[in-house]
């Protein structure tokens, strides 16, 4: 997911990741399953975010801000275990009674809804709410819709927005939900665990509900939302009465709720955490304070959290001058990850490929070692007719500085550049709208939605992911052969053969150079002295789980 977007998923996976996660986390991140039970019960958490999420709507949000805000508000049929490391990557039943029964050669998924579930408004959760949520996803043109076009009839529904999706059959009496896929999809269980398809009550308007989020099923519910300013969550009144009994394996949490305030100055955020005005900041401390905070608070109030992410500059392959691969390759030679490591104060580690370290299929290569002279030569060969370009980035530091660095590099190459720095709240919405003029090139990032390399190709680089709005394929690249390879690899369960396939795919895309990737990032958890840091469970996808926070005694 973009921006720290992303990611859902659940941390997870593999031994390599497990090791990485275990090593980070300030040591014994022992807290699996949250709520260590040693802290004080109750209390309202004061949280600060540097920007408001893209949407406060489960079907629309596709940023880490949004997913961390709503991760324990909207529960999908499947979900991820509230734990760190490899354990947290495990897909577990959410609203569904158990994991899906997969039949028909991987094309049919059958699940049963747990009985007795209720929304925060007291209405019962029905099996038919699931297809309603999937249809709503398509009706609001969500950026997450490409994950579900393999459901029979979904593609047609995406175009017509009428007639329902015949591939989903439900029975409200028995709670049965049967999903038919056009072809097998190795990542579908992961995708059923994304908030995009978390059930919402039928009749929920098919529009952005950020100012008035729909009723929810998790331990917490959003009681107030003021886009751009903040929101409040309280205990779901039907959690204790109904849902926690139906889903005993999901954490209830100890705190009563949270008040979230958007504070756009990260210096102020750090000061406020130090003074105890806020209990937790969702974003990392600003680069200038990072070292200081780390030295003063690591282990007690501060912890570094590794992520599975790629930071990159995208180039719109449908428009001159970036419709020429030589121009894009020249840009790759010109961008220097070593310089960007300093721009991010050492919080990124330089890479020049799509897949980040820790992701299955990752194998380090470097097609474009920094060489400005070679970049200029390539550009001279390409001789693009249009040298006027607009460079996009958002206001959040240091992404804004990365954008300024990139603009400077392009200028040095001879481009006539204009830099546009947008508010981080709506950056991805604006650049994901194809009608926005001058979408030539710009900054983006991607955090894993789930621990599968398909997540770094299908939503970002596949032709089928090019959408009119909420587009995630900012490069607008659609190579028929590579599209086919993505589809074929996605149909299979991940194994060593598939991992080799993704390795090759990574190289093939970087030869086409739709992006200039520059690094993978570490994030952090920074809490006030009132919070028990040990209890906080951090997911590289959902951020810190709300249910894991505890006040110190």
């Amino acid at each position, binding site marked *: 997911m973009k921006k720290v977007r992303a990611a859902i998923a659940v941390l997870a996976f593999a031994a390599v990741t497990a090791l990485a996660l275990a090593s980070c986390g300030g040591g014994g991140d022992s807290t699996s399953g949250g709520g260590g039970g040693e802290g004080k019960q109750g209390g309202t958490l004061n949280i600060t975010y540097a920007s408001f999420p893209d949407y406060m709507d489960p079907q629309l949000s596709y940023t880490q801000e949004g997913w961390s805000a709503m991760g324990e508000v909207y529960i999908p049929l499947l979900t991820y275990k509230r734990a760190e490391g490899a354990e947290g990557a495990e897909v577990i039943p959410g609203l569904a009674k158990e994991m899906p029964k997969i039949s028909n050669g991987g094309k049919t998924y059958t699940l049963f809804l747990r009985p007795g579930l209720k929304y925060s408004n007291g209405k019962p959760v029905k099996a038919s709410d699931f297809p309603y949520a999937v249809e709503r996803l398509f009706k609001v043109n969500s950026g997450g819709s490409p994950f579900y076009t393999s459901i029979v009839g979904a593609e047609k529904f995406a175009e017509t927005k009428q007639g329902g999706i015949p591939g989903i059959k439900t029975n409200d009496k028995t709670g049965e939900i049967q999903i038919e896929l056009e072809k097998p999809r190795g990542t579908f269980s992961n995708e059923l665990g994304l908030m995009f398809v978390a059930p919402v009550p039928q009749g929920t308007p098919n529009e952005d509900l950020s100012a008035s989020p729909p009723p929810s099923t998790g331990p917490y519910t959003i009681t107030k939302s003021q886009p751009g300013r903040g929101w409040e969550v309280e205990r779901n009144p039907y959690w204790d009465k109904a849902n926690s009994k139906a889903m005993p394996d999901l954490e209830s949490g100890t705190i009563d709720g949270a008040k979230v305030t958007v504070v756009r*100055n*990260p*210096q102020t955020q750090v000061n406020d955490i130090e003074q105890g005005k806020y209990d937790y900041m969702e974003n990392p401390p*600003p*680069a*200038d*304070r*990072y*070292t*200081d905070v780390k030295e003063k608070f690591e282990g007690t109030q501060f912890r570094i959290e590794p992520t599975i992410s790629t930071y990159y500059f995208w180039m719109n392959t449908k428009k001159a001058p970036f419709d020429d691969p030589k121009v894009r390759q020249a840009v790759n030679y010109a961008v*220097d990850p*070593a*310089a960007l*490591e*300093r*721009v*991010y*104060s*050492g919080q990124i580690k330089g890479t020049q490929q799509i897949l980040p370290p820790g992701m299955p299929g990752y194998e380090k290569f470097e097609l474009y070692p920094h060489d400005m002279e070679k970049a200029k030569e390539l550009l001279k060969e390409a001789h693009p007719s249009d040298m006027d370009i607009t460079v996009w980035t958002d*206001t959040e*530091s*240091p992404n*804004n*500085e990365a954008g*300024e*660095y990139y*603009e*400077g590099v392009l*200028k040095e190459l001879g481009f006539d550049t*204009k*830099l*546009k*720095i*947008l*508010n981080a709240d709506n950056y991805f919405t*604006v650049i994901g709208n194809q009608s926005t*003029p001058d979408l030539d090139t710009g900054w983006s990032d991607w955090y894993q939605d789930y621990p599968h390399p398909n997540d770094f190709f299908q939503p970002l680089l596949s032709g089928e992911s090019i959408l009119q709005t909420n587009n995630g394929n900012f490069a607008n690249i659609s190579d028929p052969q590579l599209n086919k390879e993505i589809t074929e690899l996605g149909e299979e369960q991940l194994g060593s053969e598939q991992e080799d396939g993704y390795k090759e795919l990574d190289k093939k895309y970087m030869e086409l150079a739709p992006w200039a990737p520059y690094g993978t990032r570490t994030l952090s958890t920074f809490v006030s002295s009132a919070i028990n840091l040990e209890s906080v469970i951090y997911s590289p996808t959902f951020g810190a789980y709300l249910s894991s926070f505890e006040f110190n005694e």
Partner: protein
Amino acid sequence: MNSTNRAAEPAEPESGSAGYGPWRLALRRFLRNRVAVAFLVLFFLIVAFVLAAPLWADHVAHTGPNETHTLQKLHVGGEVREVVTPEGKPIGPQWFEADGRFFLGADSRLGRDEMVRLMYGGRTSLLIAFVSGLITTFLAVVLGLLAGYYRGWVDAVIARTLDVLWSLPVLLIGIAIGTASALGGIGIGPLHLEGGSIWIPILIISIFYTPYVARPIRGEVLSLAEKEFVESAIAQGAGPLRVMFGELLPNLASTIVVFFALNIANNLLFESALSFLGAGVQPPNSSWGTMISIGEELLTTQPLLAIIPGVMIMLTVLSLNMVGDGLRDALDPRSKVRFEAKTGIAEPEGAAV
């Protein structure tokens, strides 16, 4: 302060004052105001400083205002200093240790030369303040003359419009317009300003500060229009345009000059506020406001990055305000009383403005 000193000096020969025109007399009065003169010199020094930006950039710093030097190393004596450390800390002021390179250090983790950006940023800030001052003054004079001369419904419409404009939360609206136009620019009829153009803050400042100058001008026109020389001109058959621009305007000159100076100071502050809040000059271009904004992020470790452009703004605004006050004292006929009271020097006969 200056009045005390002047009082001790011998009075100028009366003979030399006889027959002075009003402007020359005003100049004499201004030059006697040592504080105003000192601040005028300071203002000229600031202007000279920012105009010298290309010279400093090309011959001393050897870099442009937007060039990044993230990985560059400086060789100072036998020591190697990184412009930006691996932890992202920019280098501090080098003064002349590195032959003038990074004289005030680097501005951020991008490693741009702070001194070069200060000079170029000052050019941008002063240009915006000056041009918007010209536009504001032009609009204010035209509106003030129309309202004061025609009165009636013309005055009602103009005066109320100015009242409404003046009662708006100027900074908030300026931020809103600046932020919105930073993306798509502003289109006014056939005129389209690209997002990021410095004409956007110029336009915002010009429009919102017009009442600041137009209201007093209108008041003065209302007063002047009652005078005999205006009635005399009308009696001689002068049309509205001639009366407004031939009779009234010259009598407004002193007010206009004073307000122009003060207006530039206000515009500079407004531009700095807009740029600081991201609604004025857009990155990577610098202005003193954007430099404070960038410096704010590094306030704890590199406070000079925010303080120096702040001091530049303060000195420029202070100098313009003092010059404006000096001009008012020199040009306003009523200041004669104050002038005599302060200096003990009698105004030459027949020299009243």
